[in-house]
């Protein structure tokens, strides 16, 4: 069985400072991993995905994530936060049969 844990329910950063959203996963197989973003009152948008290619994955809006098998982690980072990054972020683990969402991390960006 697969599972995903987002280690922080809420992260607050100042504009222009780095962002780190943490995600750990558990999977019996070589999983695919994703990060989705949900802006207020909007649907979920795919930020980036890892599907067993390069371990450092670059996504949209300057986000990237690194797959670390030894740590079973897939943390999301961005060098410099922008006000428009304020949103809910979901880490997702998937194999061909099942897809599991984390509980979400709410990112707040202070001016």
């Amino acid at each position: 069985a697969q599972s995903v844990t987002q280690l922080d329910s809420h992260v607050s950063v100042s504009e222009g400072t780095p962002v780190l959203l943490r995600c750990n996963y558990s999977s019996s197989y070589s999983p695919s991993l994703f990060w989705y973003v949900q802006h207020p009152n909007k649907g979920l948008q795919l930020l980036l995905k890892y599907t067993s290619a390069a371990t450092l994955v670059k996504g949209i809006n300057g986000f990237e994530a690194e797959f670390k098998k030894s740590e079973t982690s897939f943390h999301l980072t961005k060098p410099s936060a922008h006000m428009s990054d304020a949103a809910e972020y979901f880490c997702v683990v998937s194999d061909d049969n099942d897809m599991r969402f984390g509980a979400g991390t709410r990112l707040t960006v202070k001016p």
Partner: protein
Amino acid sequence: DTAVSQTPKYLVTQMGNDKSIKCEQNLGHDTMYWYKQDSKKFLKIMFSYNNKELIINETVPNRFSPKSPDKAHLNLHINSLELGDSAVYFCASSHRQQYGYTFGSGTRLTVV
């Protein structure tokens, strides 16, 4: 040219009513899904539908029934609506799960 579209975007209705939410995808994906997002933003799979095979989450009440007239459509019908059904419902589609889902913009259902 919307990839996954849901209608309506907002739905306010009284307890006991029956309502439907429609979903259409133009991506040629072969699997479609319904998710429920509660007030704490937690996403829960309700149904997946692939090539006429319906996989049901057993915790979903049988008042909820998905209907798929063809591969591009997966509608959600809800009978005898209850206050606890208030949530945002998302439709999604995928070619294969390992490639990720494309989500619709959601339907905010409020039962009063």
